[in-house]
C-alpha cells in the first residue's frame, strides 16, 4: 500500500479540523466518509455540513487520481476502492464515467461552494452551521456560478479603448515627425 502515491492533492483541509469528525472513533469516522462518498459519486451534487463534506472531498480526489494513474487491473487500487466505496455499482462508475471524463483535466475534480448561513435553524440557536454544496466537475446540471459576463460594451471600457487608440496614433505621428 505504501507505493500508492499520488501527486500532492490540490485540496487541503487543516489537520486540526479532523478532530471534529472523530466522535465515535476512527471506525465511525470511516463510515461517515464512506456514506458521503457514495452519495457524492451517485448524485454528483450534494449539500451538507462543511467539516464532513470538505474532508470527504480529499478522499474523492485521491480515489479518482489513483484510478486515472493505475487503472482497474491494479491490486492496491482495487483494495482501496473496495474499502472506501460501499455500493459496488459505483466502482464501475468511477472507471467508466469519471476516468474518461477527467482524462485531460489536471487538478481538483470537485467543486465546493459555501451556502448562505441559515440563522436560527441550528438546534443550538445562537450557533451557526456553515453548509456547503459539493459537486463533481462537468456534471450535467446547471452551473452554480453564473456564466461569465461580457464587459467590453460597458461605457468606461469603450472610452478606455478609444483613448488607447488615440494615444497610439499620436505616438506614431510624433515618431514620424522626429525622424
Amino acid at each position: 500500500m505504501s507505493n500508492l502515491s499520488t501527486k500532492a492533492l490540490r485540496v487541503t483541509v487543516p489537520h486540526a479540523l479532523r478532530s471534529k469528525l472523530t466522535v465515535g472513533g476512527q471506525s465511525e469516522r470511516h463510515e461517515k466518509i464512506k456514506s458521503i462518498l457514495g452519495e457524492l459519486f451517485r448524485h454528483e451534487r450534494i449539500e451538507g455540513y462543511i467539516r464532513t463534506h470538505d474532508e470527504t472531498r480529499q478522499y474523492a480526489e485521491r480515489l479518482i487520481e489513483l484510478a486515472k494513474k493505475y487503472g482497474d487491473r491494479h491490486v492496491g487500487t482495487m483494495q482501496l476502492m473496495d474499502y472506501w466505496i460501499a455500493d459496488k455499482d459505483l466502482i464501475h462508475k468511477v472507471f467508466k464515467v469519471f476516468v474518461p471524463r477527467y482524462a485531460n483535466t489536471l487538478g481538483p475534480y470537485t467543486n465546493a461552494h459555501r451556502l448562505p448561513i441559515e440563522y436560527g435553524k441550528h438546534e443550538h440557536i445562537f450557533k451557526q452551521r456553515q453548509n456547503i454544496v459539493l459537486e463533481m466537475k462537468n456534471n450535467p446540471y446547471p452551473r452554480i456560478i453564473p456564466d461569465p459576463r461580457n464587459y467590453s460594451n460597458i461605457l468606461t471600457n469603450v472610452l478606455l479603448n478609444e483613448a488607447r487608440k488615440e494615444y497610439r496614433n499620436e505616438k506614431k505621428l510624433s515618431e514620424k515627425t522626429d525622424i
Partner: protein
Amino acid sequence: MLANIIARYHFLTDQLIHYSRFFFSSPTFALINTSSSSSTLISPSTSCLPDMSILLTQKHRATVERRRIRRHSDLPMSLMSRIGTPRQDLHQCLECGTWHEKKTICGNCYDRIKKETQSMKDSFANKDEFNYNHPQQEVVYVYNNDNKLTDDKTKRIVEIPRERPTWFSKNLIPKINTTK
C-alpha cells in the same frame, strides 16, 4: 500589537475561569433552575430565545472599572463594539441584487438552480436503477427544444418534457475569458 494584547487578555481570562475552580470550592458562575417555578402556570411564549430552564448568572459583583470597560471601551469584550458595529462583510449579487455574506454564494440564485437540479433528477424514470445499479455511461438530459442526439451506447439520454430555461445555457464548459 493590539491583537497580541487582546489574545493575551482572552488567554488570561480563560485561565482565570479555569483555575478558579481549584481556589474556590464553587465555580465563579452559578446555575439557576427556573423550571421549578412552572407551578405559576405561565405558558411560555414561542420566542427566539433558548430554553430558559438554565441561565448563567454572575455570582460576584463586577468592579466599577470592569463595568465601565465593558460599556465604554473599544476592546472586543465591550458591548458597544460587540453589538453596536454594523457588519461590513455583505455583498450584493450581480445577477439579482439580493444581499449575501462574503465567501458565500447568492441564496436567491441558488434556489432556482436547486429546484431545476431536483426536477432533472426526478425526470430519471427508473429510481431503482439510479439508486442501486447506476448507469455506466454519461447521463445526458435533453429538453424539448434541443437537438435530438443520436442514440448510441456511450451516452444515456434522459428526455425532459419541458422547454429549456433561458438562464440555463447549453454550453456547460464555456471558455472563461471575460475581456473578449
